[in-house]
């Protein structure tokens, strides 16, 4: 695929580093390039909506979006980040790698204003990972939970719940001791995880799933 500097990126990101104009390809990859940014000409900049959908689907299973938003990187660095994450299991379609990297490179470039780091109270930070009482989700049956798990969840989260191509690992996680939050994910869905109807996973079934997953260590 021919690669050349695009006018768009030259505008957004290349001002400070000096545009060297069209050239055939990137020099051997330094960790951070001092040359003009080079992206694939086949990658028109994604719209915010399209990029956001891609990020939600492909990038937020293992960390929140702030991991992306705090970076200030060159196009080359972004391209290698997206590829690194794909190698680590981000389900990015091959044809989306370049457009996503170009979008991130424009949005979170070396010229973008510094991130305003939000704050959180120590009590809220501790509460976010602390175990909570099971409430309506107490007293599940691990055997029934195993059956439900293999029927509804294992295709994505793996038989041993250790995570797979799509789903993340669910074993030995704080979320298993925050039953209401767990139920919320199951019933609302998130990213590529579908929402399950309450009729299909009533409170007692959530309790069973929790009992199974807690015993899976």
């Amino acid at each position, binding site marked *: 695929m021919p690669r050349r500097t695009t006018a768009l990126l030259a505008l957004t990101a290349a001002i400070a580093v000096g545009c060297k104009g069209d050239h055939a390809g990137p020099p*051997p*990859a*330094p*960790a*951070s*390039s*001092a040359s003009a940014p080079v992206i694939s000409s086949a990658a028109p900049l994604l719209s915010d909506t399209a990029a956001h959908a891609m990020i939600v689907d492909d990038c937020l*299973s*293992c*960390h*929140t979006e*702030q*991991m992306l938003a*705090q*970076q*200030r*990187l*060159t196009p080359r*660095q972004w391209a290698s*980040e997206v590829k690194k994450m794909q*190698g*680590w*299991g981000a389900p990015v379609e091959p044809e989306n790698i370049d457009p996503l990297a170009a979008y991130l490179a424009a949005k979170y470039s*070396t010229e973008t204003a*510094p*991130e305003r*780091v*939000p*704050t*959180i*109270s*120590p*009590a809220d*930070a*501790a*509460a*976010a*990972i*602390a*175990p*909570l*009482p099971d409430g309506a989700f107490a007293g599940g049956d691990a055997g029934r939970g195993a059956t439900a798990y293999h029927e509804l969840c294992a295709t994505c989260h*793996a038989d041993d719940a*250790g*995570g*797979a*191509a799509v789903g*993340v*690992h669910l*074993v*030995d*996680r*704080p979320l*298993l*001791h925050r039953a209401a939050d767990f139920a919320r994910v199951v019933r609302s869905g998130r990213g590529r995880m579908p929402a399950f109807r309450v009729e299909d996973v009533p409170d007692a079934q959530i309790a069973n799933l929790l009992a199974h997953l*807690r015993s899976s260590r």
Partner: protein
Amino acid sequence: MMRRRQLIELGASIATSTLVGPALADEALLQHLGAPQDLGTPLEALNRLITPTPLFFVRSHFGPPALDLARKIRISGLVRQPFEIDETAFGHLQQVTVTAVLQCAGNGRALQTPRVPGVQWVHGAMGQATWTGVRLKDVLERAGVLPGAAHVRLAGADLPPKPTVPAFLRSIPLARALDPGTLIAYRMNGEPLTLAHGAPFRLIVPGWAGDHWIKWLTDLHVQKDEAEGFYFQTAYRLPIEPVSPGAAVPPEATRPLTTLPVKSIIAQPLDGSRQRVGKQEITGVAFSGEKAIARVEVSLDGGASWRAATLEGEPGAGRWQVFRHVFEDRTPGPKHAVVRAIEAGGATQPEKAAWNPGGYLWNGWHAVSWEVVA
């Protein structure tokens, strides 16, 4: 089963209720990442000998495992007698408390030019606490280290989110493991470790960067070689020879990072703040993983002249002292201070930190500007 439940509930009250005293009520952590949590200590809190646990920075790669105070540690590999231990078995060993700085290797990454990817810590990924536990040496001696052993591989209970993500595996050389300062800790600042800080057990490696201080510790594997995998062979390494900023560094030209280099940080006044005319107070912390701090110097004229600050707290490698420089200033206007630390018989903190591709161990001079008003 019952036992674990009770422990989990006990842990819940520990996790939510510890130490949030009234003095801390309006101090907040810097949220660099909400999930998994990467939380920084606010700069203005970095002028205390002990960082209160609720304000102590939190670093997680994958997020914590479930709180389980009954988790055991397995000792295996090149040992005469592999075994599992928990806190009850520690009763036979001497309990030790050390005061030490914990600093994330990536602290200051946001200050590297050119910028590098990773959590964009500024100053907040460091703190000092008292750590109580048993010596790793005593545990290894009980297991009986066999000839040929040279490294101890460390693993915690925090699993990667998918099997395709590398596990967080690290190792330390046997000599460091046998150092009397290296602990398996279960208390921090006198209280049981919180989940965010590694409950029930974490390793304490005074003087060395945080990537060795494994949280939720479950495995000690004595072996001939260093750990393998991304988090030892690719991450947490420094160029062996200095490199020019932005340079690509091949893996064979790198070595694992270990000791914290000499560093000082100004906590007050805050950059951009306003102070009344009269008494001006510059405070912060200084430390080195290598040696004790010999002196801390403050310059008010951009480095032309330097005055020694007073130091508080006990000197020692791997622990910080609070520095303080007080002076009168009756002239309103913009003020500027820069600080540098010098270690005993050793290095002076460099004006500019050495750039490296991972953005590790930033330790350049810290400068602040403020306004004195009538």
